[in-house]
């Protein structure tokens, strides 16, 4: 049994908490998905930047459909699928589909300013009035918002 870490474009860092959340037996992949990259409409400049980042990371780069690759790899590994939490609806959708067949965990990154989840977002300065104190202090290393 081994956990599969899916490092997607919203978490391209070797010390992302997703690595610590995985079991000792784990493997990490990035899926180079032509259809996804075209949907995101990234230009060549971005693709090069992403690839330059990938080659420094402890992972395997695979080319194929994100869902199909992850289904196959997680099926072989027999463990959970872990991925950095992301607001990107396309990535979320893939993770939701995977949830039907696997145990899937989305792992939050280190928080900049842990705040109540219902913090006022109407305008930036309403948020800043609440966030300022904690944002201006060194981090606690917390990964999630306070409840």
């Amino acid at each position, binding site marked *: 049994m081994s956990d599969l870490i899916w490092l997607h*474009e*919203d*978490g*391209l*860092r*070797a010390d*992302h908490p997703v690595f610590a959340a995985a079991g000792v037996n784990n493997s990490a992949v990035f899926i*180079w998905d*032509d259809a996804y*990259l*075209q949907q*995101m*409409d*990234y*230009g*060549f*400049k*971005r*693709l*090069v*930047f*992403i*690839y*330059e*980042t*990938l*080659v*420094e*990371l402890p992972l*395997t*780069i*695979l*080319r*194929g459909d994100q869902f*199909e*690759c992850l289904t*196959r790899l997680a099926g072989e590994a027999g463990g959970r699928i872990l991925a*950095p939490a992301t*607001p*990107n*609806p396309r990535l979320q959708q893939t993770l939701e589909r995977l949830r039907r067949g696997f145990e899937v965990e989305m792992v939050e*990154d*280190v*928080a*900049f*300013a842990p705040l109540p989840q219902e*913090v006022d*977002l109407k305008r*930036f300065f309403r*948020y*800043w009035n609440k*966030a*300022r104190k904690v*944002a*201006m*202090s*060194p*981090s606690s*290393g917390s990964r999630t918002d306070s409840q």
Partner: protein
Amino acid sequence: MNNLLCDFATRDALIDYVAELSPWLDDRQVSPVVGGAAAAMHRLDSIDPLAYGRTRNFLGGAVTGLSPFVRHAIVTLDQLRNLALRRCERPAQVEKFIQQLAWRDYWQRVYRRYPERIWSDVEPYKTGYSAEEYAVELPQDIAAGETGVACIDQFIAVLQQTGYLHNHARMYVAAYVVHWRRVSWQAGARWFLHHLIDGDPASNNLSWQWVASTFGNKPYIFNLENLRKYADAGINTTARDNAVLDASYEMLSERLFPRGTARQ
């Protein structure tokens, strides 16, 4: 499903390989900004958060160029905040720097809570025009950087060649596209996301909405005097080559928003 290469002797070899992996793209322009954690660490060393606070609005100011690395989580906001606090005597000295980090956190929170706001107007335009009066497609001369407004064409060239623009230049271009040309912010946002290596649906699109006034109290505009204050030496700020910008804010507001800028 096949394994892709991870070892390259040179940057050019990697670039050629990525070109093979992206046959759908015609444009092969590469950014001078190199990706990866090593490049990010090198930039972190040279950050001066105090100078940033003083000069960030100037096109030649001490900005960090770290946004592409933050965009893909190569560097975290937490890491940058802690670094800024270590490099000052009093936290107040780096408040501007940390506040700019907070803008990214804010946009990400909006994206998570209201994902539909990324492509839909949060509020009506406050420009006297309805959303239907804005062009849906980006005009060809803007995409080509041939608008005839010298500074705008220079900024577009930098965008397309490097995939990076100073934030103030982004605001100038966005204001020109939305308010001088009456093009929908969505068309501009899509175009920026294609070219910017730090392009993020939240920061980019919601900033376009802020300029447009669909996520803010009034439209953002600028004039030649403002450009001259903040531009660096390489930017053409002559009145002759930027005629449509050469007016007072009152005159521009009357010209661009003849129906007034009150809430609709």
